[in-house]
């Protein structure tokens, strides 16, 4: 029996789901995306891009199956809140916007809302941007996300609008022990001269599969600072795709910090659509015990005089599996490009694995590019130096690992978030050390 006949009834169900959820222009966009998904299918290890990351059992899930709807009054979000930040907050529980738990904000210049609402109230915004940047023509899950996602966050800053409070989005999955399939679609449009700080925090105590796609448009001379935290993510799975489109003289700054989740794949892609852009990617991953964290980044230098800087660091304990694939593409027009990439890994045990693959493709001749990838163990000279000064083995290891990982946490520009992450980092490293003994 071919897989097509097995898939057929599911595809019909998905089609009915889209037709039920959408109408008008959105309906045709979503049905077209569904057709693309049908052609592409789910990722599998035979694809070069998915060689090391295999979401076994994904095929058996019905992505249109609703997730449990919980009574918002029974949910305590305060325990997950980042302390010390006065923020605009959006809370999603099992893929639905939880209004009573949120502190949204809306003004003439600043629209911070949800995809479900924007579909009714801001069709112009969606029509101009939704699905215009992410790669649904080549990535099955991205196409599926566009077809099925009913909600997510939508942020729109008009020209020269400076959002002086960070926007924090909490994604909480809870209330079931069954693997659910959640599609969330997010859109950020920061118009010329505007400024936004965005924090996404993923929290889970359910074995959810989150398929997240976020499109970020950074207008001319605009600033977007974007943090993605997978720090209390339990046994969840995620494919999180962030696609950034940068206008002239714009700046985009991303830090992706992951030390939980059973299987996490982050795709971070930025494209310099116009000249003189600046992009920073920072990433940190800590994992052990059959966890997998996969970061695929793409820095697409398409125009001249742009700068990109990328630093990803990882610590991998026993049975942990880390993947880093960092592609820097310098297209023929991108003269005077400065592009730097570095990936450093520490393996704590020989049962851990790191697959590190930097990829530089340079088609312009007047550029400065460098990259480096290292996989090593804790430096024994450093360890002995600390011990000879009276610092015991375990403490010395924790100090060195904290210093190694701390370089990425230090890149977080919001002080309260940085302190919070630093404290958690030390706990997490201690936990890893204990499990290592």
């Amino acid at each position, binding site marked *: 029996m071919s897989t097509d006949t097995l898939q057929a009834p599911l595809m019909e169900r998905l089609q009915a789901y889209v037709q039920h959820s959408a109408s008008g222009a959105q309906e045709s966009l979503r049905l077209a995306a569904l057709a693309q998904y049908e052609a592409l299918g789910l990722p599998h290890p035979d694809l070069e891009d998915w060689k090391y990351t295999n979401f076994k059992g994904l095929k058996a899930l019905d992505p249109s199956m609703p997730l449990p709807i919980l009574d918002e009054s029974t949910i305590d979000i305060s325990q997950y809140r980042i302390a010390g930040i006065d923020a605009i907050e959006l809370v999603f529980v099992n893929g639905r916007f939880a209004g009573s738990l949120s502190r949204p904000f809306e003004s003439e210049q600043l629209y911070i809302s949800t995809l479900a609402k924007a579909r009714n109230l801001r069709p112009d915004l969606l029509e101009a941007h939704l699905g215009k940047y992410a790669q649904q023509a080549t990535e099955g899950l991205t196409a599926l996300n566009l077809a099925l996602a009913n909600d997510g966050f939508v942020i729109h800053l008009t020209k020269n609008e400076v959002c002086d409070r960070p926007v924090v989005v909490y994604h909480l999955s809870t209330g079931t022990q069954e693997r659910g399939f959640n599609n969330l679609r997010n859109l950020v449009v920061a118009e010329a001269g505007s400024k936004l700080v965005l924090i996404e925090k993923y929290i889970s105590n359910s074995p959810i599969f989150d398929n997240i796609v976020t499109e970020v448009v950074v207008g001319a001379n605009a600033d977007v600072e974007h943090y993605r935290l997978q720090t209390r993510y339990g046994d969840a799975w995620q494919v999180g795709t962030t696609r950034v489109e940068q206008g002239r003289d714009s700046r985009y700054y991303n830090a992706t910090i992951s030390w939980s989740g059973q299987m996490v794949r982050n795709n971070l892609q930025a494209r310099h659509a116009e000249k003189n852009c600046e992009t920073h990617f920072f990433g940190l991953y800590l994992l052990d015990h059959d966890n997998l964290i996969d970061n695929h980044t793409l820095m697409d230098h398409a125009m001249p005089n742009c700068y990109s800087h990328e630093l990803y660091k990882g610590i991998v304990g026993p049975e942990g599996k880390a993947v880093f694939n960092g592609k820097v593409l310098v297209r023929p027009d991108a003269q005077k490009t400065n592009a730097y990439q570095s990936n450093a890994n520490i393996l704590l045990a020989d049962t851990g694995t790191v697959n590190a693959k930097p990829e530089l493709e340079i088609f312009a001749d007047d550029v400065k590019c460098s990259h480096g990838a290292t996989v090593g163990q804790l*430096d*024994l*000279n*450093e360890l*002995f*130096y*600390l*011990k*000879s*000064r*009276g*610092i*015991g*083995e375990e*403490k*010395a290891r924790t*100090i*060195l690992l*904290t*210093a*190694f990982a*701390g*370089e990425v946490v230090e890149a977080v520009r919001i002080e309260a978030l940085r302190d919070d992450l630093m404290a958690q980092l030390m706990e997490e490293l201690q936990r890893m050390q204990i499990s290592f003994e």
Partner: protein
Amino acid sequence: MLNINNLKASIDDKQILKGINLEVKPGEVHAIMGPNGSGKSTLSSVIAGREGYEVSGEVLFNGKDLLELAPEVRAWEGIFLAFQYPVEIPGVSNTNFMRTCINEQRKYKGLPDMDASTFLKTLRAKADLVELDPNLMKRSVNQGFSGGEKKRNEIFQLAMLEPKLAILDETDSGLDIDALRIVSNGVNKLRNKDNAFVVITHYQRLLDYIVPDFVHVLMDGQIVKSGTKELAYELEEKGYDWIKAELKAAAL
């Protein structure tokens, strides 16, 4: 204070120390000189507890068998090694490093953490002792330090931790005369009747500034000659060959 008896050490089946005997008493300064590859740095590494050596014999420190102790316990007991090549520790500031070292030592002795103001006062005083720029305290340990700054940082750490026995492993190598004076002054101010120094060096010059009570010649893994500071002048003048000849003659 320190009694080394028939200490042998090998690494990867290559024997480097071939039976060292040495006694160091409180208040003394011992210099160990010898040609390259004679085992000087191995001796300091084995006393401080670096892993990777196969070791036999006995090293007693105030009656305790050092070879049984982890490196950090040796440090708490009062052993300090100033490294020939101080290690860079990216991401760990000098200040935090010193605070941790001091408080770990205090914990071992059953004392509470040093309070912040005493710590900072001590830090400043000891940095002054070796003329170390206070701004270096905020920087990562040894990272981006010049050769001289690294060596001064070793003596600064020595001053902070107040060991009973300090081993200076070629602290003078690579130092210009000004830095050498600063380092030596620091060491001389730290000398007292209760502590002791073992100074490992290639060059007699250092011993003009840190005047030793005893000079030992280490050759091919053994101490082959001991004497007073005059021996160092003799070595400086004549090199090591005459000792080799002397040994050969004695063996016949």
